[in-house]
Every structure is written in C-alpha cells, then in structure tokens.
C-alpha cells in the first residue's frame, strides 16, 4: 500500500495521462462560493514536455481495475504499481493547487476497483466535498462510469461542469476486439442519460428560479486512433453521429501509444500516429465550425485523409468548380470554405465590406493566408493565382518542400 502523497500522485497522474481532454472551457461562472470561477474560453496553465496543455489536475481516484481492456495500461492483468486516493485527499489537493493558480480545476476519472456503483459513489463524494465543504466554484470534469446507477450519475451531474463517457474505439467491431467486457449499448446509456438531463434542465430553467445546474459545460467523449483498422471515414462518421445524437461539446482523438503487447494490438515499436490525429482534429473543426458534413470530407473511394494536405484543402481540390470565390460578394459560409480563410478573417471581410470595397492589398492585413487562398479567390473580379485552375498544378506549388539530407563525406 502506498501512503506517501507524492508517490500516489505520480502513480495516479501517470495512469491518467492518456486521457486526452484537458479543456476547461464551456462554462462561464462567477465565484458564488468561497473560491473559484470559470471563464468560457478556458485557461491553460502549463504545457508539459509533450507540448500538451495542462489546465486541470487530471488524475484517477484509483488504478486498481477489474477490467482487462487490452489497450489499457491499468488492465487487471498488467503488473503496474497501484494506488488509490480518498475523496478527501483529492479535494484538498485540488484546492491547494487551485489557490496557487497551478490549475483551472479537476479532471477526475477512475478505474473500476470493485464495481461501477462503488467507484461512481467515490467520485460523487469528491465533488460533494469540493462544492459543499470547500465552497469551490471552479471547473470540474468527471468521467462517468458506465453501468453505475442513473440516480448517482444524475446527482454527480448536478455538481460537475462537464461529464464524459469514453467510447474508447470508433466502432462496435473494434470495441469487441479490444475491450470485450464493454459494450456499445452500455456506453451509450449514460451518454443518453446525460444528454436528456441537459435538455430537461434547459426546459425546466424556464419555469423555476432555483434549479440545480446540470453539466453546464456539456459532455464530451474520446476515442483511440490507430489501435484498430478503422478508417478516417468511419471515425469521422462516428464523430458526426455523436455530435448530432448526443449534442456532444467535443469528441477527442488520441493517437494510440502502445503500452501493452497483444495479438490484436499494434507492436510496441509502433509510433503514435500524431499526424493522423492532427488531421482528424482539423476535420472535427470543419464539422463544428465550418458547416461541413462528414460525407463532404471523405468517401468510400478515399476513406483516409491525405497526409500532405489538410482536409479543407483536399475538399477544395475535389470541388474546383465551386471556385474562384469573389471576396467582395461571397456569403460568410462560402468564405469559410476557402483554404487560407478562417473564421476571424471571414468575419473581418464581412465587416469591412460594409465600409468599403476590399482591394487585393488588403487581403494580407485581414489575416488571409494568401499562399493558399490566392488559387481559390478573385478580388474585384481579378484572379491572382495561376493562369488556369487545376488541382495538380496547385498541389505542386503548395506541396511541402522535401527536406534535403546532409550527405556525410565520411560514410
């Protein structure tokens, strides 16, 4: 049994580090207790050596687990150091870290030590201590334990800002292969419950003044990328479905880092597919903010993203007949589809057009990436790209330069 808090913290942070979510965004609230508030944009407090943002104290309550999911470091059959925190310890640590502005709040997850209810109860107890005893109004994100009593999940949801259920893998088939003890149905149940709770809260809020909030920052989920043979197309389809049917705030992707050996798993020497993860996040962005559908981004004949060009660019290459777009006339939605134009620059174009016509020299200052955009736009009727618009020619101009190798004269 490990008693030292520092050792416990190391073990339980290490066990939680593959959880992707670090967001502290989505809730804007003042301090209505003794300590803590949240701002809608979220705040990152530090960046670890892997370049990922640290915004929340991200830990497991325990890494003693009864499950044996093959991709997971904490599976019961692994010989790793085990430790548990008590709810009191987690609550105290959160407050002490928060006061020093190390963190924006808590991200609490857990392995299943005995059964789902036992674990969910401990999570609820931690939140209760933070909210009621410490008067903490900062951000709390908790992992819902599938299979726990719905009443317990509901009570926890009244104290949390965000809840998430990890669907772990992008398809039923993959889940069967790597986590046979989990079922899609069991994972979807709490997701549906939380979504219904949020909808119900919004309904009732119109009639009652004092109503406990319910998961005000919404729910999220995450899935592992590259541990199975799922294509980007099926991942993006699943993602879209999750946004549409459960109103998820975020779907996170996590490039699989091999931690275990197994006949159904990639070998330990496999590099995490970081570039692929990046492309999926770009595509996710296009779904959420750029009014794209999954079918527009990929199709069965091309089920994976191009590693050389981003998803918006590849969409443009496949839809050359839509271009060029006239900067001084195009509606906002169309501007958003031009490679090199983002949400900020599209908004600026719309605003500036109310004052005066936009000239070619202005485009840089608006923040448009002209290197990419010039092939897809006209400005006051004039095209500034190549003479003819063909994808191959543009690709050649935009392709990343191959890195040349330094030849050694001694070899």
């Amino acid at each position, binding site marked *: 049994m490990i008693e030292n808090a520092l050792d416990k913290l190391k073990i339980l942070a290490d066990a939680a580090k593959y959880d992707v979510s670090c967001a502290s965004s989505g809730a804007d609230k003042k301090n209505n207790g003794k300590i803590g508030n949240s701002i809608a944009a979220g705040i990152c407090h*530090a960046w*670890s*050596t892997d370049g990922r943002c640290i915004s929340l*104290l991200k830990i497991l309550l325990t890494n003693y687990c009864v499950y044996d999911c093959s991709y997971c470091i904490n599976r019961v059959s692994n010989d790793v150091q085990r430790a548990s925190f008590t709810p009191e310890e987690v609550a105290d640590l959160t407050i002490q870290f928060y006061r020093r*502005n190390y963190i924006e709040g808590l991200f609490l997850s857990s392995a299943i030590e005995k059964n789902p209810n036992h674990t969910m109860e401990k999570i609820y107890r931690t939140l209760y201590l933070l909210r009621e005893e410490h008067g903490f109004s900062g951000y709390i994100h908790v992992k819902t334990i599938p299979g726990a009593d719905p009443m317990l999940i509901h009570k926890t949801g009244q104290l949390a800002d965000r809840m998430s259920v990890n669907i772990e893998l992008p398809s039923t088939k993959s889940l069967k292969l790597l986590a046979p003890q989990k079922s899609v149905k069991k994972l979807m149940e709490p997701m549906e419950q939380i979504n219904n709770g949020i909808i119900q809260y919004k309904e009732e809020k119109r009639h009652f003044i004092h109503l406990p909030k319910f998961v005000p920052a919404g729910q999220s989920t995450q899935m592992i990328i590259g541990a199975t043979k799922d294509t980007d197309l099926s991942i993006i389809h699943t993602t879209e479905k999750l946004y549409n049917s459960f109103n998820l705030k975020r779907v996170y992707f996590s490039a699989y880092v091999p931690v275990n050996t197994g006949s159904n798993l990639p070998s330990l020497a496999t590099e995490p597919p970081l570039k692929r993860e990046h492309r999926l996040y770009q595509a996710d962005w296009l779904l959420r903010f750029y009014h794209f559908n999954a079918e527009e981004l990929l199709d069965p004949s091309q089920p994976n993203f191009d590693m050389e060009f981003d998803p918006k660019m590849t969409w443009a290459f496949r839809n050359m007949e839509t271009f060029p777009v006239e900067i001084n006339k195009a509606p906002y939605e169309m501007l958003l589809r031009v490679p090199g134009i983002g949400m900020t620059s599209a908004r600026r174009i719309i*605003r500036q057009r109310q*004052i005066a016509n936009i000239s070619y020299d202005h485009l840089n*200052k608006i923040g448009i990436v002209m290197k990419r955009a010039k092939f897809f736009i006209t400005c006051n009727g004039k095209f500034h790209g190549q003479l003819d618009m063909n994808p191959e020619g543009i690709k050649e101009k935009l392709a990343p330069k191959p890195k040349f190798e330094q030849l050694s004269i001694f070899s």
Partner: protein
Amino acid sequence: MIYLYDGSFDGFLTVIYEHYYSEKATAIYRKKDYQIGLIDESKTIEADSVKSRKVHEALINKFSTETLNNIQYTFLSCDRNKDTYLLHYIEYGFRIGKRLDFDHTHEVVLPVHQLGKRVSFEVHRFLGLLRFQEVGSVLYSAIEPDNDIITLMVSHFADRLKTERFIIHDKKRKQAVIYADGHWYLSDFHIKEELQISEKEKYLNALWKGYFKQIAIKERENLRLQQQFVPKKYRRNIIEFT
C-alpha cells in the same frame, strides 16, 4: 508639435484635449522615454482631470465598447509609439464613429488592433502562467510581462480568490496590485529580502513539480511546441520550470 506627458491615462487624455483645442500634435510620447532632439519642437503637458474627463466622456459617447477596449489595451502596450497610434486612431474614430473597428485594414486602425491584441493575448497567457506562493497569510506572485498588464488581470483573481489576500508583483515595473477584503489597489512595490518559504509550501511545490513531470507522455515529446507556449523568458517565475 510633439507632446510629452507623464505616462498616466489622465495625462494622455489631456494631450488629446490639447490636440483639439490648442496646437495639433504630430506625435505623443511618455516624457521619460523621449530623447529631446534639436529639430523637433516638444512640449510637456501636465495631466488635468477636468480636460481629461471631457475627452473621456466624448470617447464613451462616440465609440463602441470594442473601440474603448482597444484604446485601453493599446494604452497599456509596451510599444513606444502606442500613444501616437492611439491619437490617429481616435482622430479617425471621431470622423467615422461606431464602425471604426470594421475598417480593420486602415493604416491607423491596424496598428491599434495589433497592439491591443498583443496585450490581451499576454493578459490571457498570464492568467494561466502566474503562480502564487503562500507567504505567511498572503498569496504572492511575481511576473515580468512585456506589457503593463497587472491592472487588467486583477479582477479575475479578485473574483476567484475573494476570501484570500494576494499580491501580484510586476517586477519589471516595480509595481504591484494588492488585494484584500474585496478591494484592490495599485502601488509601487519592491521586496528587500528573499521570501521565506514554509516547509508546507515547499512540499506543495514538490507535489506540483512531480505531477507536472509525470503527466507528459514520453513517446510524444515535443519541446519546441512546449517552448512556443511557454517562452523561456517567462520560465524563471514559473515554479515547475525552476
């Protein structure tokens, strides 16, 4: 005429008043930054609260909240030409009105937008990167930001830590905001001796450092990306980097 002033917002607004009611300004500088030359004619303006209030009211009536924010943030920028940029921006604003910021690419609007954005970015960055240490019954933090941002940060922490007492010390400008019992004020500030750190505080520092180290995924190491987010110049005041 080049106007020189004391660096206060009141002083700056008084200069704007003089620009409209006396001689036109060609440039505005803070007196302590300006090297008096032989060719340019310059004049020092004393802050005058009656004149500055008149200008302030005019700004509030004429401009959008967005513009007022841009003026405030740009004023706190470390750029030496920021006062002159603001002069031209305000002048153009009095002609064009509430839609001033729509004209993003205009030569007098763009520099103000750029400086304002840089300041607000730094404020946001320091809301995360600032670290408090418990010293006695006070939470103390030291920062060395490029821009003069502590007054823009304090309300965030005043709400967040409303039952605590805290000090945010700008070591570069030798100033601090001091918060206690629901109120804060800005003061000149310096510390004579090294701070005494308690054993408990040292232990919590160690806990945080241990956590910080453990949370990184070795297989994904990317120090360049980390440095993009936490530039080296900030690291000496951030506990987990020391």
